[in-house]
């Protein structure tokens, strides 16, 4: 077991060795790289990273450049979990047979967008989680296929206008509720499942460190505000992330060993969902009088989910 890196505050954290370099081609203000940095810089252990096809993959390893100061692999869109499970299996095999390249502690992370997680990579993730590999799966959840021009995924929330669920004369955009990956991964019996937002670096780092300390599969749902497709100013990414947390749209919570729910942060002031929706172009059409019911439904869903989590936490199950 490796020693947990001490990160009490940013003055300490910022002395970390940087493991994800600039010069990548992510959009200005993209939250993906913020999440990646919070995560990979939170440990001094050696890392092997796999990444699903998507914004992060395509922008961090455009030949002839790599932004990764750790070993990294990308195979396809749907197999980030299978890929890292192979790397982890090889690590285990070499270790068991005393053929390891190094005695240094090694951790395994898969990064994928919500398309590569909720949709096309779902089977691969489910398989790898069920097999119990020692890996951490981080979903960079920007609620759509942003790398290809903002199509809907099963993470796109109701009312969201995407290029394949556009708002129109007779449509308010996406009709389905966002898939609940947290519960699905908890049901796999993952050792640790957590949701975080990049604007709360402390929460993210804490969850990253809990992930590194775990020995079984870990699933992290990291919400990743996307200036390009959510349609807001790039400087506002962390503001949006903050409002997502404060409005309880994205509760910061964790589920340990498949059942124990802890809500890590309880906003004191009630921020209505309307405020969050109003900050983004993708929900602009919801403010037409005829779509008012969608905002009401949004609020109802957020409240119900929040209530559910609190009751689970209280019940200890």
């Amino acid at each position, binding site marked *: 077991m490796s020693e947990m890196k001490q990160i009490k505050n*940013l003055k300490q954290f*910022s002395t970390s060795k940087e493991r994800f*370099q*600039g*010069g990548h081609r992510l959009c*200005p*203000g993209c939250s993906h790289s913020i999440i990646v940095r919070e995560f990979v810089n939170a440990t001094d252990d050696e890392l092997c990273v796999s990444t699903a096809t998507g914004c992060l993959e395509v922008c961090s390893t455009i030949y002839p450049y*790599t932004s*990764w100061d750790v070993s990294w692999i990308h195979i396809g869109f749907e197999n980030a979990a299978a890929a890292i499970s192979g790397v982890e299996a090889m690590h285990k095999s070499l270790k068991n047979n005393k053929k390891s390249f190094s005695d240094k502690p090694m951790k395994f992370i898969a990064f994928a967008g919500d398309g590569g997680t909720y949709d096309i990579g779902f089977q691969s993730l489910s398989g790898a989680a069920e097999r119990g590999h020692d890996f951490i799966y981080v979903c960079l959840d920007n609620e759509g296929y942003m790398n290809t021009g903002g199509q809907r995924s099963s993470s796109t929330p109701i009312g969201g206008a995407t290029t394949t669920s556009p708002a129109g004369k007779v449509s308010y955009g996406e009709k389905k509720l966002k898939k609940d990956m947290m519960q699905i991964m908890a049901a796999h019996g993952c050792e640790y499942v957590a949701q975080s937002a990049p604007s709360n670096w402390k929460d993210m780092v804490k969850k990253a460190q809990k992930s590194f300390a775990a020995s079984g599969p870990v699933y992290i749902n990291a919400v990743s505000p996307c200036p390009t497709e959510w349609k807001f100013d790039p*400087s506002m990414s962390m503001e949006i992330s903050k409002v997502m947390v404060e409005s309880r749209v994205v509760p910061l919570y964790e589920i340990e060993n498949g059942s124990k729910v802890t809500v890590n942060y309880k906003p004191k002031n009630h921020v209505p969902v309307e405020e969050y929706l109003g900050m983004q172009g993708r929900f602009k059409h919801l403010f037409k009088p005829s779509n008012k019911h969608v905002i009401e439904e949004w609020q109802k869903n957020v409240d119900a989910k929040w209530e559910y989590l609190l009751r689970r936490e209280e019940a200890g199950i």
Partner: protein
Amino acid sequence: MTEEHLLKGWEEFEPGATLFSFEGKPDQEVHHENNSVQHSVADWRVDKPVHNKEFCIDCQFCWVYCPDTSIIPDVDDKGKGIFGHIDYKHCKGCGICVDVCPTNPKSLLMFADHLPVEEALRQWPEKEEKK
């Protein structure tokens, strides 16, 4: 834009199109020519952030929330991270550092990319009254 020296012939590339992060061992911290840290994205920028150390409290929010690893910290005598400098080769000018800066007036502000830093510092605003 691709640097000319990297445009090698087919026989010169590493098999499998692999890329390396470092020249030599990682702890020597010499990045490989194929590390994106060698690549400038400065031309993406319209506005640039300028840092004013007069107001900075070294909170390091700008460091943690920079998506382009462009706030390069220093370490003080006590081994603590403090603001170092802005890496203008990799900053895309998104403005998050300015947004998350908690001081009043802010210690980071956006200015037109062509404006000299000294001129930007001269234009720095006064402390804002709380609304």
